């Protein structure tokens, strides 16, 4: 696939005239340059910001994965974080002193993705006949079940080490190149987080490309058809069952891969990180950003990941200046704003910030019908 095709894909949701193509080129180059320099810019403020950015990118990956399920196929999944958990634990158990296995990451990540895929199918299978609200609740239930299992599989056979979590997880390693160490190459210092950053950006690009291709393929169109009207889709000869399962499976596998990277960067995981709130968070990123629109979803993820940091730096001083002390903690304000954002968005702009044109039409048309 040539770069030109790639660029065309990227601007698919944009109805642009010829002249705009040049702007798009410039835009792509600028963005690429910005991305490459970003970690160093952040590192000059503090490597902590690179870590925060890495976490944000992980959320971007998760949102892209959920976008397949919710955005493309229209299946409301409230238990998505379970796949993240599966991927994370797969990596943790296969690359830590827990079972004393230390497989390299390029072996484990595919295993993680595959395992998550299987769970995705397991989750999807019973829910094929369900719609809307029921599907949401069942997926929520599954998410919780998986978390409870992870939390309790320390008896009678210790598989996941229960609530204590798994520690001392290996970072990524290629031969002697260790991702966690700080190294100096060509006069520039690459700290651990910076190396992970590049890996993550690469991963994001790969997944975006996969998503774009999917969107345009027969599979993507089949999903769109199912989303709009399942009965008609079936009448048209689409095997809705397989398509739905495929959506779950693909979404899950992206979650699984992200989970593996998460494990490696943190070095320690426990069931605590995979609670329902996380699922809702990811869902909100997708919904608020713009369901079905890849760029909208990315934007949503970035906004919601950085929001807590931003809030922390603004809310505290403001409150202290106004009231002399902290009345409401930034975390609480963040959640309040978050809930409010969800409600307001649904009331006024249900298609999201950067809506996919198709969805926008869908949602607005429905609203008008009395």
């Amino acid at each position: 696939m040539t770069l030109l095709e790639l660029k065309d894909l990227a601007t698919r949701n944009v109805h642009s005239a010829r002249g705009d193509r040049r702007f798009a080129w410039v835009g792509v180059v600028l963005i690429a340059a910005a991305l490459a320099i970003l970690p160093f810019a952040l590192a000059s403020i503090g490597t902590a910001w690179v870590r925060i950015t890495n976490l944000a990118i992980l959320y971007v990956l998760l949102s892209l994965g959920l976008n397949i399920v919710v955005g493309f196929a229209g299946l409301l999944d409230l238990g998505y974080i379970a796949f993240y958990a599966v991927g994370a634990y797969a990596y943790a158990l296969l690359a830590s002193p827990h079972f004393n296995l230390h497989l390299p990451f390029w072996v484990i990540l595919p295993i993680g993705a595959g395992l998550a895929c299987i769970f995705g199918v397991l989750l999807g299978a019973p829910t094929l006949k369900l719609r809307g609200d029921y599907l949401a609740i069942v997926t929520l239930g599954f998410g919780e079940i998986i978390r409870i299992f992870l939390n309790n599989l320390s008896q009678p056979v210790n598989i996941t080490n229960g609530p204590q979590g798994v520690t001392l997880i290996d970072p990524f390693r290629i031969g002697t190149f260790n991702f966690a160490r700080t190294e100096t190459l060509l006069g520039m210092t690459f700290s651990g987080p910076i190396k992970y950053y590049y890996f993550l950006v690469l991963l994001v690009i790969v997944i975006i490309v996969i998503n774009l291709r999917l969107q345009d393929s027969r599979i993507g169109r089949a999903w769109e058809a199912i989303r709009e009207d399942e009965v008609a889709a079936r009448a048209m000869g689409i095997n809705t069952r397989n398509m739905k399962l495929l959506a779950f499976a693909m979404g899950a596998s992206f979650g699984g891969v992200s989970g593996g990277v998460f494990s490696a960067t943190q070095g320690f995981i426990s069931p605590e990180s995979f609670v329902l709130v996380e699922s809702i968070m990811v869902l909100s990123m997708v919904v608020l950003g713009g369901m079905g629109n890849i760029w909208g979803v990315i934007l949503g993820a970035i906004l919601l990941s950085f929001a807590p940091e931003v809030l922390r730096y603004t809310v505290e001083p403001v409150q202290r200046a106004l009231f002399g002390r902290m009345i409401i903690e930034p975390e609480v304000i963040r959640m309040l704003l978050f809930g409010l954002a969800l409600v307001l968005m649904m009331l006024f702009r249900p298609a999201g910030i950067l809506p996919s044109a198709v969805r926008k039409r869908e949602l607005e048309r429905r609203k008008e019908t009395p």
Partner: protein
Amino acid sequence: MINGLTLGSVYAIVALGYTMVYGIIQLINFAHGEVVMIGAMVAYTVISSLTAAHTSLPPLAIVLIGTLAAIPVCMAVGYTLERVAYRPLRNAPRLAPLITAIGLSIILQHLAMIIWSRNPLPYPQIIQTVAYHVTESATGATITNVQIAIIVTSLAMMGALLALVYRTKLGIAMRATSQNQQVAGLMGIDINRVIALTFVIGAALGAIAGVMVGSYYGIAQYQMGFLLGLKAFSAAVLGGIGNLAGAMLGGVLLGVIEALGAGYVGDLTNLCGLSGWSDTLAQRCSSDPNLALFGSNYQDVFAFLVLIAVLVFRPSGLLGERVADRA
């Protein structure tokens, strides 16, 4: 078993709230659990201030006053929810009200956290619990007066609700609206009012449930609504969503299943019975005769498993009528 019944009665009352709303407008009100929580919290404030003020009122009266204070607050919350968030979205695709409900749930939880603080709030223990022995033996089952009160109240509520729905004009209006909104409107029924009333009544029930939960467990916390709501919803689905008697039945059943399950799943899956099959197992069993595959920690899983099983195998529930096919 008694514990199961009590737990079940609690689930039942909350489930009634869910099922009422769903029956009318086919919407799962996720925020219902938070309404229950608010009821518990408001009652807590009233009860503890009355207790601290050392009034000479009998404890039962204090609890009643607390409940009476909680009910209008919850009704107001319910009404606001409906008016502000659900009414504009009545015709939107399923996703929108769902997300809105989640958002509202989060807002309510955090408002409660701000007002009442994060910490678990101990309910003043003013009612002396008296235990009655059900069986002859001293270590047999006991039932306390609080438990009896809960079960009785629960039944009373259901009775009242059934009377409301089947005997009064309002009830007829509700049933009509749930069957066909447009025609009901044409018949002169004020749809908006009926729907709002449904929410409000559901919220009132939720308030009572909240007070019961608070007094029974002695503790109230801003997060208690969530899991309770989820389980009550499972109960409603189990019994057949949209069906009042089903909600009661489902609630009680779920409570019993959970209680018995938590208590006995360890025994049921006790691995030591199989220790003949493996030496390591036998070895471990010699030091730990309680070794079980699934223990009581899987209690919460039951509710979810029940939910999934019902939705997969019998979506209309036990007593149910309708299956929501709309996306």
